[in-house]
């Protein structure tokens, strides 16, 4: 069905913005709510979930090297249970894509384009992603590679420009209220790291499969470090007020001021966010479309790009009446929901698969 191949480096460049783009904007505020000055510890703890998820995905891939999770869950669980699980995965990805496109649009409408109807932004982003998905995995991979520097360099620039405003003492005292607050922050954040499970859809299409695991792990490390640095930078500048900001990174970027005219750099954050959100949404969209086609045993995934797109747009509105509801979902439901579908269920799949293989080889030898 998918004949394109991507390199593992492209995979890393695809996964990095997928995790980081949405996280850098809102995560400092979310983790600061729980962990206060220890917010930088949360990404480190949460990255454990990332490592575990990548490991599970790789082990599953080793057992079924040519297939994605939608296909091999039928082999592991049997056809009926496999289809039900496949449906759950697809529902999760459609819903999450819709959710993240909504979050992207809320930021744009709430901070920059106040009067633009949100549907215009949601639809235009979905349309753009649809074109990328139509091009196939290779195109999505290339786009990610192309945008990678445009995504990373402004972030580095932003951090460097903020150095004069740092108040490093802000993070003291370390672990004042014990380890629990950073763990609470990490639980929320683990929803993001669980998204590394997407990698299972990319492994079969790697041109250099041996490096897949290595690059997956590197991506987790780099994403974790990025979040630690961003959390620290934001907290150095904003202090305790970080917790009350919806988009702390944007507030911080507005704070940059050099020589009276080099200021108001929030447009950089907006540009980074749009690029990151585009890569993220495209990957999610692609995975959903590919998975659905495999679930329905279609010979090509292109005909269902449009119907899925409409579903994604719908899901970006359904049950999300306001930004507050969106944030509540991020805080309360998503950590469990994301962790369950992307880490725990795959873990069970892996356990069953290993047990089955053992039984098979056991019966063969006897």
């Amino acid at each position, binding site marked *: 069905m998918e004949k394109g191949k991507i390199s593992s480096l492209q995979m890393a460049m695809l996964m990095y913005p997928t995790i980081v783009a949405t996280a850098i904007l809102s995560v400092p505020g979310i983790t600061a709510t729980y962990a206060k000055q220890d917010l930088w510890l949360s990404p480190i703890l949460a990255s454990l979930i990332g490592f575990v998820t990548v490991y599970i995905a790789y082990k599953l891939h080793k057992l079924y090297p040519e297939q994605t999770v939608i296909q091999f869950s039928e082999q592991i669980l049997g056809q009926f249970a496999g289809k039900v699980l496949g449906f759950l995965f697809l529902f999760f990805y459609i819903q999450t894509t819709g959710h993240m496109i909504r979050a992207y649009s809320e930021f744009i409408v*709430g*901070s*920059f*384009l*106040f*009067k*633009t*109807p949100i549907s*215009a932004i949601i639809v235009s982003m979905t349309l753009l992603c649809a074109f990328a998905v139509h091009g196939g995995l290779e195109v999505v991979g290339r786009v990610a590679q192309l945008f990678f520097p445009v995504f990373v360099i402004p972030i580095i620039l932003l951090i460097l420009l903020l150095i004069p405003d740092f108040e490093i*003492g802000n993070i*003291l*005292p370390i672990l*004042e209220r014990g380890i629990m607050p950073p763990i609470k922050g990490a639980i929320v954040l683990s929803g993001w790291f669980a998204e590394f499970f997407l990698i299972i859809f990319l492994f079969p299409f790697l041109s250099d499969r041996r490096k897949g695991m290595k690059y997956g792990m590197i991506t987790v490390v780099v994403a974790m470090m990025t979040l630690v640095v961003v959390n620290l930078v934001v907290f150095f500048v*904003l*202090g*305790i*007020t970080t917790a*009350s900001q919806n988009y702390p990174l944007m*507030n911080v970027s*507005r*704070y940059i*001021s050099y020589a009276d005219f080099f*200021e*108001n750099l929030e447009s950089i954050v907006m540009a980074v966010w749009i690029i990151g959100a585009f890569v993220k949404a495209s990957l999610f969209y692609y995975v959903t479309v590919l998975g659905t086609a495999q679930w329905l045993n279609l010979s090509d995934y292109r005909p269902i790009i449009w119907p899925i797109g409409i579903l994604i747009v719908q899901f970006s509105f359904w049950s999300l009446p306001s930004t507050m509801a969106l944030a509540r979902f991020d805080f309360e439901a998503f950590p469990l929901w994301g962790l369950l579908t992307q880490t725990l269920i795959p873990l069970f799949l892996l356990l069953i698969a290993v047990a089955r293989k053992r039984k098979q080889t056991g019966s063969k030898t006897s």
Partner: protein
Amino acid sequence: MLVKRKGSHFMKRILFLLSLSGLLLLLSGCWDRQEVNDLAIVTAAAIDKKGDNQVELSVQVFVPKSLGGGGGQGGGSEGGGTGKTTLVISQKGVNVAEALSMVQSELPRKVFWGQCKVFIFGEKAAKEGIQDHVDFLLRHPQPRERADVFVSEGKAKRLLELQTLLERDVSEAIREQAKLGVGMKVTLQDLGEMLASEAQAAALPYLKIVTEKSEEVSYQFVKNFATAVFKNDQMIGQISQRKTRGLLWLKNEVKDYTVTVKPKDTKGGISLNPISVHLDLIPQIQGEKWKMVVKVQTEGSVIQNGTNLDLNNPKSLKMIEKVYEEDIKKYIESTIGQVQHKLKADIVDFAKEFHRKYPEQWKQAEHRWEEVFPEVKVNIYVDANIQRQGNINESERRREEKR
């Protein structure tokens, strides 16, 4: 056949180009298209209390016409547009947001906050609490976190109506003055942090209108006069200009500042400019006693020497350094004395220092910090060095005496 195929290819290209140029239409931003000539650019805003439950919001709006749009040099002499560069509009409302909507109804252009870099609270509004107003400023996406916040003596609106000679308008004058470091400089972000801090105290620069009178003209200008002290979000008092200097030392914000000291046994005084300042706040808890060690390290240069002391002589240099240290110490002591015992508001943020070093003890003192703070013993150590003496190496007085 071949020609036909070529033709369709050509048509395809044309269509592609057309659809590409169609994208240009999207670049303007559609719904959020905002032309500069549709904006009323606010340069400063003042928030006052009016009557019992009303807030008066005054905005100073920039008048683009006054710059003689494209007229160039000629505009100045003919005084185009009667020379007024700004327009002040004020309206009442239950809160700032409502007052703003009333202001908007009086303007033909959309109010734009992005360039507003000065917010002034009237004294009465400050005394009744500013939290409510700050909520609006931090929540609204347009006002900048880097904007400066002030408190004014009396009504803040009067400040906006002043004419300035040196700068384009009052907001510019106020901001530039704050930047020089004569008094405190507090940004909206700083204020938000102060209001959320454990010290539960805040300090804002206090502005006053001063009149300079000569025989022919009298000229009014705004002076960054003193410091307004807040407890929680209510202004409870102020610190004089003299003591504000001590506060600047404690906040490590000393910038443009001249110290004049009078050594004993000599005539005249000697003036110094601090060049670099290094401040250490070291909290100490011994048993039940809370102590704060304030260490100031500063380097200065001599800018006027009216004494007969020879600066090239290490002995007299030491002596001057000693007097310089004493003087700085005196400033800081008098400020701390007032802050600790009279106002009882921790505007220096000792709370933060104690919290960072002694989290355990802090937890017990946290809720009664108001009682603990005045009891904190403060030890001040100043280490001053004189680095340079300017362009001449001998004082005029000394030369005279030598002769």
